[in-house]
């Protein structure tokens, strides 16, 4: 179960990706991979929390930087097509933000919202939940339930101008932020693939894919602190991302085509892992329909 105590007990997951050196990043992502192999929702919760820490570290406001150095539960959510949350001219948040992980226990959030024709990452303090309403029925099972994902409806919630951390995609800090977000998905997709691979007794036909992806994942990890704005870096990141997401989807399909039994009941360990993998595999849409600029070939 993910909570602040988990972070305190496992300091590697309090790693600050922005300020960490190469060795610390390797420790963080290797540990994350191990977790994803065993517990996909937990790995996802950890990753989202680190993303918030990154945003707060990249903020130009000391107050945010200070929070980033503490142990906290964070909620981070990208803009979804059906989100309606906007920042009004008098700096009030209005509308709904969907798919926010860690929501019931979250202390700080960095959310993508609409501001006029632009999108921004904003900081929201969830310790005082005035002017906000919550629902937790976004995900009703069977997979990824422990991520405690829900929706926030902002009802004219006033925020300070300093809460606007950066403009989405336009800010020069964006590449660095996305470097982590991209690679944690690659890592968790790969970890989930390894978990499923093990559960189906490591068939030879997937062992080459696992080996190839392991090599690719290591290569990205070795370059994680290099020039994150270069085309070369993003080509490598994108290749690993697509390969890991594709392999996870293929393993899920393999279980549907040739397995079944315990995998189909979500109340036993095999089934729970399968349903977590199935639901997690649909995160961020299809690998064939990538829209993010970091997913376009450079």
């Amino acid at each position, binding site marked *: 179960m993910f909570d602040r105590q988990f972070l305190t007990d496992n300091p590697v997951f309090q790693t600050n990706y922005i300020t960490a050196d190469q060795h610390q990043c390797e420790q963080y992502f290797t540990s994350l991979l191990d977790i994803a192999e065993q517990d996909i929702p937990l790995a996802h919760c950890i990753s989202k929390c680190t993303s918030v820490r990154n945003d707060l570290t990249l903020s130009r406001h000391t107050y945010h930087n200070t929070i980033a150095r503490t142990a906290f539960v964070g909620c981070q959510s990208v803009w979804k097509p059906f989100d309606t949350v906007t920042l009004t001219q008098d700096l009030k948040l209005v509308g709904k933000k969907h798919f926010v992980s860690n929501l019931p226990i979250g202390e700080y959030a960095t959310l993508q919202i609409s501001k006029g024709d632009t999108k921004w990452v904003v900081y929201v303090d969830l310790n005082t939940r005035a002017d906000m309403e919550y629902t937790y*029925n976004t*995900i*009703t*099972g*069977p997979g990824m339930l422990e991520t405690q994902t829900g929706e926030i409806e902002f009802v004219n919630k006033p925020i300070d101008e300093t809460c606007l951390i950066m403009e989405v995609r336009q800010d020069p800090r964006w590449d660095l932020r996305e470097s982590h977000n991209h690679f944690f998905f690659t890592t968790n997709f790969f970890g989930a693939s390894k978990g499923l691979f093990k559960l*189906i*007794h490591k068939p030879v036909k997937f062992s080459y894919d696992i080996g190839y992806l392991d090599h690719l994942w290591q290569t990205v990890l070795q370059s994680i602190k290099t020039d994150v704005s270069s085309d070369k870096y993003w080509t490598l990141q994108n290749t690993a991302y697509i390969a890991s997401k*594709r392999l996870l*989807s*293929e393993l*899920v*399909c393999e*279980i*549907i*085509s*040739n*397995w*079944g*039994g*315990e*995998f*189909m*009941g*979500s*109340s*036993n360990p095999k*089934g729970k892992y399968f*349903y977590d993998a*199935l*639901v997690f*595999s*649909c*995160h*961020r*849409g*299809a*690998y*064939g*329909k990538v829209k993010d600029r970091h997913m376009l070939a450079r």
Partner: protein
Amino acid sequence: MINFTWHECKMLDTEFLESNPVYLTMPTDSDETFQIYFTALRNLAEQNIPIAHSVNTSTSAKACLFSSTNPPHWEFANRTCPASFSVVKEYDTLNIRMDTKLVNGSKAWVSTLATGEFGIFKFIGECKGLQSPHFLLEYTYKGTENFVEEYKNVCGPGMFQSGTGEFYLKDYTVEPVFHLFASDPVKALPLNKALALMVPTILYGGCIRLVNELEIKTAELNKLTNDWQRIVDSGLTFNLSKDYKALDEQISDFYYKVKQLLADLCGTIIQNSLVKFYNPETELGKYFYDSMVYSTHKNSNLFR
């Protein structure tokens, strides 16, 4: 967006069957009832796979009982209640004592166990000197120490509504073991044809629905539609000298292809991350999970 709670969906019951008597049609009665039944089953599968599956098990159990030479079995066959039909597999431990008629052991993956009144259980191969014997098990004492039922393995949203579970029997008395058509296997052919077409028809209904939902066109489904129609149109009649073999192969071939197509359609949803299918508390989401689980029936590694 939330239509219902999947684990509260109503399972097949007598009320549903009596309100929709087409599902009480006996496909082994005539060519006409064969065609009426399988058309209705396909249509039902397009709407709800677990309910269609329970209709299949109920009809299969009753069709076997109609074929019995033991008159008391016919009373069961005429009931309007749900029933189970299941084959005893190598991982089941059911054991019958022919002298005392007592049964002991466990039976897993029994569909319609939750709402059925009785079940027909078929042994494959020889058992106690009989070839493929069936036995009738009344669920009268379900919940007692002699008949313990569990539903632990099927607790996901997929096929939950089929009421599938497992049971453990301790010195449970069964009706006499009966052996269908022991002396005249030819007479078993219409029954075997009907039983063999049940699961493929439900898989086929699932393919039709998912193709519609995905708004795609597949040449494979058109071909399978022709195959299914040909099998159904042929009814119960066939030329014994050569078509018995051909019939078996025709249904087996259809079964293999339709099962593969349903798995492929689920794969299309997964590989394209089509999120609208993923919420089990929408009718569409529940249908996806039902399809996915149903497509795994008889997979090669099912119980590894």
